């Protein structure tokens, strides 16, 4: 049986494959075409996977919140389907972020985990969105599920500054921002180039995965995308 969502899913799969190819190319570029950092050694290469997956995860959760606001305003089921897809893809990126982080932290910080603002915030967000998914799974009525998850999505969006502020007052040992800061980026050009390329690959991967998941959600709901 061909569903009306099939073209969307197909487009999503193609984009995802392109994104994965991009990530593979970034691996090559990071290992072969980028100088090794003097103090951190090979461990620093994790940056090119860790930072873009963290940004993608945060962007995914943020867009879930925005789509949730949109759903309560316009009651358009497509916004709910997007929120669901984005939350799920955010969790996948979150898993990458939370596994690559400790792998880098052990040799460089000397500890797997540190209770500092960025780690705590992202961990809490991942846990909250696991709850968000559990909530979705425990409601059968699609309209009710959409409303309830939108409420949680919006509350999560509002929670972020509070978590950040409350944890920020502890001292942080997380590397400070190297690109998005008032002064010039502090990464050497070759490393910056690899990081930006990786960010592009992960953005493409996000779009591909969300499109696929959105298409699957619409197909399962039995509606045209």
């Amino acid at each position, binding site marked *: 049986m061909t569903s009306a969502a099939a073209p969307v899913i197909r487009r999503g799969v193609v984009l995802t494959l392109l994104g994965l190819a991009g990530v593979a190319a970034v691996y090559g570029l990071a290992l072969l075409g980028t100088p090794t950092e003097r103090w951190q050694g090979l461990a620093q290469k994790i940056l090119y996977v860790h930072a873009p997956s963290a940004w993608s995860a945060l962007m995914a959760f943020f867009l879930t919140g925005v789509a949730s606001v949109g759903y309560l305003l316009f009651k358009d089921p497509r916004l709910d389907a997007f929120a669901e897809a984005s939350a799920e893809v955010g969790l996948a990126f979150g898993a990458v972020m939370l596994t690559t982080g400790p792998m880098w932290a052990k040799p460089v910080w000397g500890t797997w985990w540190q209770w500092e603002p960025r780690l705590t915030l992202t961990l809490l*967000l991942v846990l909250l969105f696991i709850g968000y998914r559990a909530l979705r799974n425990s409601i059968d009525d699609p309209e009710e599920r959409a409303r309830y998850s939108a409420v949680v999505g919006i509350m999560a969006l*509002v929670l972020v500054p509070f978590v950040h502020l409350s944890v920020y007052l502890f001292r942080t040992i997380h590397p400070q921002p190297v690109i998005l800061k008032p002064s010039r980026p502090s990464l050497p050009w070759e490393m910056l180039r690899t990081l930006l390329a990786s960010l592009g690959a992960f953005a493409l991967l996000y779009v591909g995965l969300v499109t696929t998941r959105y298409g699957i959600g619409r197909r399962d709901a039995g509606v045209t995308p």
Partner: protein
Amino acid sequence: MADRLPAALVIAAKDVRVELASRTALTAATAFGVLILVVFNFARDPTAVSLEVLAPSVLWVTAAFAGMVTLNRSFAMERDGGAIEGLLLAPIDRSTIFLGKYLANVAFVLVVDAIVLPVFVLFFNVPINPTLGWIALLLALAAAGYVAVGTVLSAMTVRTRFAELMLPALLLAFVVPPVLVGVQATTRLLGGRPLSEILGWVWFLVIYDVVFLTLGLMLFPATIDE
């Protein structure tokens, strides 16, 4: 919000009367709180960790958990027997229902806190002086915030499978900021630091309360069926 208050107080008074008739939830939550204090006391090595070091965290974790278990009841009560229909038929808007439920929930959590705090003082040998008043204020401010979130969430989770598990799974993330701030401020208060050091934390809690109460008033109508 002021024009909603009279009707909201009627709803809150109804919830309080229902609870006073049985006193099940409050008694259970309070016993639960005291039990957590007992468990904490035995969950540490007294030769390695002194009571004073652990006390602020114990107080806040206990208050948060004991407070949270009272919240499930609020809408479970309305769901059973379809009592919510009666509330929805009343000529008031949904935000007023939220406000009434919220006020009753805050009252319940404050009662639990009012019992947990003296027991904490007793078990943990905390000196009785004016700083206890400040700690009580911090507990009340924290409760006013996370109860707003919990009231919205519990209105939804009672209608799901595994309601008792779903509420804490969603609510705990929202409890982290007030508890974190509360522990920091309580540590300073018990350590005899000047009040000026905790004023920033107090403001943090006030802003948290205002933001999430406003958000609750706005979002709650979406949790009720048309």
